[in-house]
């Protein structure tokens, strides 16, 4: 009997963050939905109670059904029969249970049969799902593609597709092709208008498509003949009921084995245009990807949670030299670091989700009525913060998930290398998180802009440094303030060289420093609200941050730009 919400007090802590009052009020339009829907909340307390109740339902299904199935799903995996994906039996059971529990279309408005939950709640369910089975987390969380239809589709499409997703239809986003991975501008899948049948037709191949045999696909395709870049791409909706897309094969992967990764062939496939032509990549995919990145942050956090729990359980149980190995500093240090990185990951995950909530809901409200000046400013502020925090959090949390699952195996010793313990699965599953939906290297490209323009710095100064903390946290607060001083010198030190290759070279280090400081502040805030739960992690994390930033400082300030030549492999060097 385990409930992944009730057994994890950190989730409740984040669900009760002060900003939730504003989020719920916006999401519920001042609780006016209650007039029309008997399951809509009447005030903030009612809304928060509803969020908790749904998290309990999710925690129950994930703890009781998804988690016990995870090992078998990992071993059996999906297969392809007659060009169709057949899920592992456990995966099929998970999908059925989550659908019966009404956990599809969580964030969709009630008029399309959704539960109208904020992004924070959706992300929390993903966080729990990933702790149980990271591969299943993908299948389930792809319901978020409905957000794209809601934001950009026409009314007929919303009415046609969103209620189906709420009733359990699965989704996929068909973006990647053999020659278009990180560089989606190179997408070639052809969309042509079929005058005779008054519809679009898709022809081509997609590759690495997660859950590629889903019921409803979002497809990025080239609608403008003769174009070569992103401006020639549009977004389409393919309904599996219309047929025409076949699964050629599924990949044999290192991890997330329950999640089928498909190669798809499109033969004269009927599709609907979603939104406007030519905005497929430059607007819709960008929006879709930001949502997906937040989802991967949650997945990474859930994996860190799973790793932490395995690490501590094993270390308490395993006895060597006459005592439990958790008694040894070499082991308890690793566990404390895992916990600190886990708590830090969760802090930035929910902080980002809250930013996304505020601005996305305001954007949605803007479609219904004009926003006043305050609301416009609020939207702008939170959109910018969401843009800044998403790549930063994605980079930090997914790298931490790798480190944490790695350390958990180390704590298990030889046993960790065997299939007998789930930590090897977590390790394999974590490995994709810092690759897909944009590698860490690409997150750095997105985040460095906010380092150079000062988004993070001003947010620390204007918000985090203004927070009134309990006296026992003042020492830590001062130490973090000192890190900010170092950071403030490092950024111009790099930027003012105006040496672009050098800036690109040092970008990752600057972004990591920004991540270390951000997580430190967020953990201070968490510890301020609940010292018992987060005090140790705040202490441990700030120490880690100091060490990392000292290293970064030394690297950046002592690096001779001329030495870039030693790093750069010229064609001459690589030829041999």
């Amino acid at each position, binding site marked *: 009997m385990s409930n992944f919400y009730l057994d994890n007090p950190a989730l409740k802590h984040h669900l009760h963050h002060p900003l939730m009052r504003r989020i719920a009020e916006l999401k519920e339009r001042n609780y006016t939905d209650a007039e029309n829907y008997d399951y809509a909340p009447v005030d903030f307390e009612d809304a928060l109670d*509803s969020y908790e109740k*749904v998290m309990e339902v*999710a925690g129950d*299904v994930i703890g009781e059904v998804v988690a016990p199935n995870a090992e078998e799903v990992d071993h059996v995996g999906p297969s392809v029969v007659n060009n169709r994906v057949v899920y592992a039996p456990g995966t099929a059971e998970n999908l059925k249970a989550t659908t019966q*529990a009404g956990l599809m279309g*969580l964030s969709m408005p009630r008029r399309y049969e959704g*539960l109208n939950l904020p992004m924070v709640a959706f992300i929390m369910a993903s966080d729990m799902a990933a702790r149980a089975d990271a591969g299943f987390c993908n299948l389930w969380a792809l319901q978020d593609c409905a957000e794209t239809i809601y934001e950009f589709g026409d009314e007929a499409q919303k009415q046609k597709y969103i209620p189906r997703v709420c009733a359990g239809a699965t989704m996929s986003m068909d973006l990647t092709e053999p020659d278009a991975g990180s560089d989606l501008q190179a997408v070639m899948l052809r969309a042509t208008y079929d005058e005779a049948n008054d519809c679009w037709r898709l022809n081509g191949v997609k590759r690495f498509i997660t859950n590629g045999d889903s019921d409803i696909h979002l497809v990025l395709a080239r609608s403008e003949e003769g174009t070569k870049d992103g401006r020639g791409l549009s977004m389409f909706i393919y309904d599996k009921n219309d047929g025409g897309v076949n699964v050629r094969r599924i990949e044999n992967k290192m991890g997330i084995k329950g999640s089928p990764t498909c190669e798809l062939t499109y033969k004269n496939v009927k599709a609907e245009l979603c939104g406007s032509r030519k905005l497929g990549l430059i607007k819709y995919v960008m929006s879709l990807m930001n949502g997906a990145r937040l989802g991967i942050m949650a997945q990474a956090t859930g994996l860190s949670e799973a790793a932490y729990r395995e690490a501590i359980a094993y270390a308490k149980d395993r006895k060597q030299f006459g005592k439990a190995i958790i008694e040894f500093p070499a082991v308890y240090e690793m566990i404390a670091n895992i916990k600190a990185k886990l708590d830090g990951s969760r802090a930035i995950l929910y902080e980002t989700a809250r930013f996304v909530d505020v601005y996305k809901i305001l954007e949605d409200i803007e479609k219904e009525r004009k926003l006043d000046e305050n609301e416009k400013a609020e939207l702008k502020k939170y959109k910018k913060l969401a843009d800044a925090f998403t790549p930063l959090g994605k980079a930090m949390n997914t790298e931490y998930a790798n480190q944490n699952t790695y350390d958990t195996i180390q704590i298990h010793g030889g046993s960790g290398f065997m299939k007998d313990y789930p930590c090897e699965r977590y390790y394999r599953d974590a490995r994709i998180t810092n690759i897909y939906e944009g590698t860490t290297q690409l997150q750095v490209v997105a985040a460095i802009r906010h380092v150079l323009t000062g988004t993070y710095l001003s947010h620390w100064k204007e918000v985090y440094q203004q927070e009134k903390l309990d006296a026992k946290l003042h020492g830590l607060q001062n130490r973090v303030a000192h890190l900010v001083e170092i950071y403030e010198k490092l950024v111009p030190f790099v930027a003012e060289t105006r040496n672009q290759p050098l800036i690109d070279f040092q970008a990752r280090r600057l972004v990591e420093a920004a991540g270390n400081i951000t997580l430190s502040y967020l953990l201070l805030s968490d510890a301020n609200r609940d010292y018992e739960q987060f005090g140790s992690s705040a202490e441990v994390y700030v120490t880690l941050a100091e060490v990392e930033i000292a290293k970064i400082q030394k690297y950046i300030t002592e690096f001779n730009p001329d030495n870039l030549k030693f790093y750069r492999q010229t064609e001459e060097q690589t030829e041999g």
Partner: protein
Amino acid sequence: MGFKIIVLAKQVPDTRNVGKDAMKEDGTVNRAALPAIFNPEDLNALEQALRLKDRYDGSTVTVLTMGPPRAEEIVREGLFRGADGGYLLTDRAFAGADTLATSYALSTAIKKIGDFDIIISGRQAIDGDTAQVGPQVAEKLGIPQITYAEEILSVENGKIKIKRRLERGVEVVESKLPMLVTVNGSAADCRPRNAKLLLRHKKGVAATEWSAADVNADPQQCGLSGSPTKVKAIESVVFQAKESKTLDSSDQAIEELIVELITNHTIG
């Protein structure tokens, strides 16, 4: 076509997680110390009912329970999973009922509900383990009963077809409607709570409350006065190994053990 289904469900102390304070000194069950739960096999029964509802459009599922006011939560749990409504029989007059008095009370409530096609209950409750209430209700209503059901296979042309789980196999039997079926724990688990239904029913009144007078029950046949069974004492029996023995895995050790077990009549 749809069917009118009544699910009999009971709120029981969770005897699967019995702590030290599960029994009072006077030998009765300390209900305050045990969490109250939906009787597990009644959840299996509810699932069978909900499957019929999914399969046959227009079917309705009504939960009927008897107990103290807090047993309303059983009806609420039913609503969270897809039941349409429910009744709570609650009255001091019902207190202390044995299976005879319980089945009498339930049958009066069912008569009051009136129109029904199928009554589904769990095989037995984990607090009494009698497996008598379901069959007795069928007797009192004068309808056929099928016990130990594992799956309701179909309801077609006024006939219900049911797979029963017996000790040494399964059998498929048929009955005409209306009828009563009791469901085994080996049947499909109950579906999880549904988030939307939970939000819809989390507040407010879940069940229509009925007293003995509401269902025209004869007070003499209810509660303690209607119960010929008297509980003398309840004992908490804790199994514990007083002495243990370690065996090695050699053929000789196993043979000696077998001989010992045969000699002391444990086996053979």
